[in-house]
């Protein structure tokens, strides 16, 4: 990225605009769906699915992850594993018979 040519950057800028429009559209969609009052499980899945797409767009294009070096991915894979473990922690409560 450090040695990108002006033409390459201009191409990036066009991509940023497309991503921006997509993020706006997805924001409207997620709010609109919330007014449908789906049942909790479906609402959580849909809302988190849309949020994940939006997050992936931000990380891939605005944070340039799509063309990033290997070392950063390695750090992020490790982070992802620990993050999933963290999210799974409440499940332990399901099997807790004490108290």
């Amino acid at each position, binding site marked *: 990225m450090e040695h990108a040519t002006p033409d390459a950057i201009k191409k990036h800028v066009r991509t940023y605009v497309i991503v921006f429009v997509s993020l706006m559209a997805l924001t409207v969609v*997620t709010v609109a769906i919330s007014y449908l009052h789906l049942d909790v499980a479906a609402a959580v899945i849909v809302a988190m699915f849309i949020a994940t797409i939006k997050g992936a767009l931000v990380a891939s294009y605005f944070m340039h992850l799509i063309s990033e070096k290997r070392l950063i991915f390695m750090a992020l894979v490790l982070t992802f594993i*620990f993050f999933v473990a963290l999210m799974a922690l409440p499940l332990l409560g399901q099997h807790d018979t004490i108290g």
Partner: protein
Amino acid sequence: MQIPFTVAARPDTGLHNAKLGVWLFLASEVMLFGALFSSYILLRVAAPEWPHGSALLNVPLATVNTIILISSSVTMVMSWASLMLKDFSKYRRYMGLTILCGLLFLVVKGFEYGAKFSHGILPSEDLFYATYFTLTGLHGLHVVGGIIVNFYFWGPGSRMWKTEPQRFTNRVEVAGLYWHFVDLVWIFLFPTLYLL
């Protein structure tokens, strides 16, 4: 003493140091917000009942705030692209817009908080508001921190453009990484707190 690898990539990592440093910092931030999200899930699942966010919070206002924050992410990346195209005045405009959007986000959030406080609703109200204020409060502090950094690079810090343009561009890029992360956190906070 000169700080090494601010422009050139380190041979072993293939990256300039600031970028790797900020990514590692963001990894720790994932765990910070992750711990709070995890606690939120635990508390919500265990609660006998939990109100729908839209019944208590102002969804239209939060939607506007989401749009403001996403817009600021775009202006941030455009400010970096302007530097890559050697257009400093455009950079200043985009960075200025990013700061304004950040401030606007805080103003809207301030109105939201104010509406609650004026009704005597504080974090101690109940579990819902405790988690709401904790999550949005920590996120808000991150916005404040980002605005301070961005303001420095818009104002006094931008002098570096004249002496070391590539190093300055790299600084703006990594400040952008942080700012986009703050946007990313909000992308998950917004549906979690307001729409579910």
